[in-house]
């Protein structure tokens, strides 16, 4: 790993991976405990529309993705909360529509976009410094908002009805959380790609949850797991010459399954959990 770090692209990749770990560690916890996995999957796939729009307009695709993803997140929030159709139906429809928009825009753009695959499946090794700066800014915003509104988000996640009664603007907070999810998706696209974003949003938090019942500790643990997954995945992909995004996800998934297996083993051998 150390000799690999003499390359600038490896240092950038490591920084990108750690920024991804911080954002998905924090926001992934809300995604897990508030059961927003499906809507997050919808938001991340719909972001493909923004990538296509970026290509079409000739701007950096990730900037197109940022605005499009925020719009998609808010749109899904509005439809799922206000329209009289089932939430998962609404998400399924918007999920596919976002991707369709992306495909149409890419079709309308002359030539074939050279790095399209890197947005779909992630390529942490080619993250440009400008994207790292954007990821850093988004991560800082996410941390600030969550620190300032921690107790409100906790109440929102635990019991919306009670939060409403004690006077919390539940709906506005929910939309704010969706925007933070959109930010996280944009940070993660570069690392693992649109299709695999949902794995980093869920696996570190789900793994962390097995070890604590305190949301703050769960976030910290989740960041640590995320950092381990991205760096270990990056190193493995470098050593074995594998696709980085997919390697990161496999490292995450295998660790999660191992933690499940270990706790099952502990239960069977009768060693109490703390």
């Amino acid at each position, binding site marked *: 790993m150390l000799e690999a770090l003499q390359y600038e692209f490896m240092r950038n990749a490591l920084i990108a991976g750690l920024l991804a770990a911080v954002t998905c560690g924090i926001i992934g*916890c809300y995604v897990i*405990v508030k*059961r927003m996995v499906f809507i997050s999957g919808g938001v991340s796939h719909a972001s493909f529309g923004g990538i296509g729009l970026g290509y079409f307009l000739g701007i950096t695709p990730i900037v197109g993705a940022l605005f499009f993803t925020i719009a998609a997140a808010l749109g899904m929030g509005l439809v799922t909360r206000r329209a009289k159709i089932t939430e998962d139906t609404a998400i399924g429809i918007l999920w596919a529509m976002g991707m369709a928009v992306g495909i149409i825009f890419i079709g309308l753009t002359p030539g074939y976009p050279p790095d399209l695959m890197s947005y779909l499946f992630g390529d942490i090794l080619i993250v440009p410094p400008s994207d790292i700066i954007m990821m850093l800014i988004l991560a800082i915003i996410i941390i600030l908002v969550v620190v*300032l*509104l921690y*107790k*409100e988000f*906790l*109440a929102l*996640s*635990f*019991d919306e*009805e*009670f*939060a*409403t*009664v*004690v*006077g*919390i603007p539940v709906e506005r907070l929910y939309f704010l959380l969706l925007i933070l999810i959109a930010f996280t998706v944009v940070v993660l696209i570069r690392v693992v790609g649109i299709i695999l974003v949902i794995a980093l949003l869920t696996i570190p938090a789900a793994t962390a*949850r097995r070890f*604590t*019942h*305190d*949301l703050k500790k*769960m976030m910290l643990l989740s960041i640590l797991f995320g950092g381990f997954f991205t760096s270990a995945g990056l190193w493995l992909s470098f050593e074995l010459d594998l696709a980085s995004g997919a390697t990161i996800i496999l490292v995450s998934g295998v660790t999660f399954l191992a933690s499940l297996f270990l706790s099952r083993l502990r239960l069977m051998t009768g060693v109490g959990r703390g």
Partner: protein
Amino acid sequence: MSSREVVRLEDIWAHYDSLPVLEGINLSIYQDDFLGIIGPNGGGKTTLLKVILGLVKPVRGRVSVFGDTPEKGRKHIGYVSQHSLFDRNFPANVWDVVIMGRLGKTGPFRNYSKQDREATLRALEAMEILDHKDQQIGKLSGGQQQRAFIARALVTEPELLLLDEPTASVDTPLQTDFYELLGKLKERMAIVLISHDISTISIYVDKIACLNRELYYHSSKELAAEELEAAYQCPVEMIAHGVPHRVLKEH
């Protein structure tokens, strides 16, 4: 009546999925009431509480809560919902959950204050679950969870406590304990308790109303047998089994 009126419902009609669940409800709740609302499942009991809380908008009628709209007046209400649906693995301990009741008083962008923490401590003590404050909420027994949720409603320092089927997840021997606890609380606030279990609550509450889309209530603990029959749509012998005689009017 010299007692202050805290909630007033006038000709309330409410729908659920375009089906009428409340039809022409008139109800006044006073500051020293301990009111039990009974009625069959699906009779609109929860909807009635949600109308008072401003969580369900009636299609017709006027709601006044502490002389204000439900949205403004509900800060004086402590609400304990049927919480059976919450996620048992949720990463929060009892303390985290109970102190949530202080959110409206603290406001955003800051930590809970010393007063918030003291109020939480008092409520945990009053509900006798202080020993469990660091335990994960989902790992408590049904009865202890119930106490935690009432503690959460109490830290808002309410003048009216609304309880939705509070004994649904409590073992029968513990229910007596629970009602004695409510007996203490009623000195400090109005209490409205809804339940489908007529026989138990009729022993403890001071007044009883019966709700099945329409409300039968005489500001007393008496209901006519015909009213119960109308609400439950079956002979009164079947529903009033075990109901103390003083609930049913002589006729």
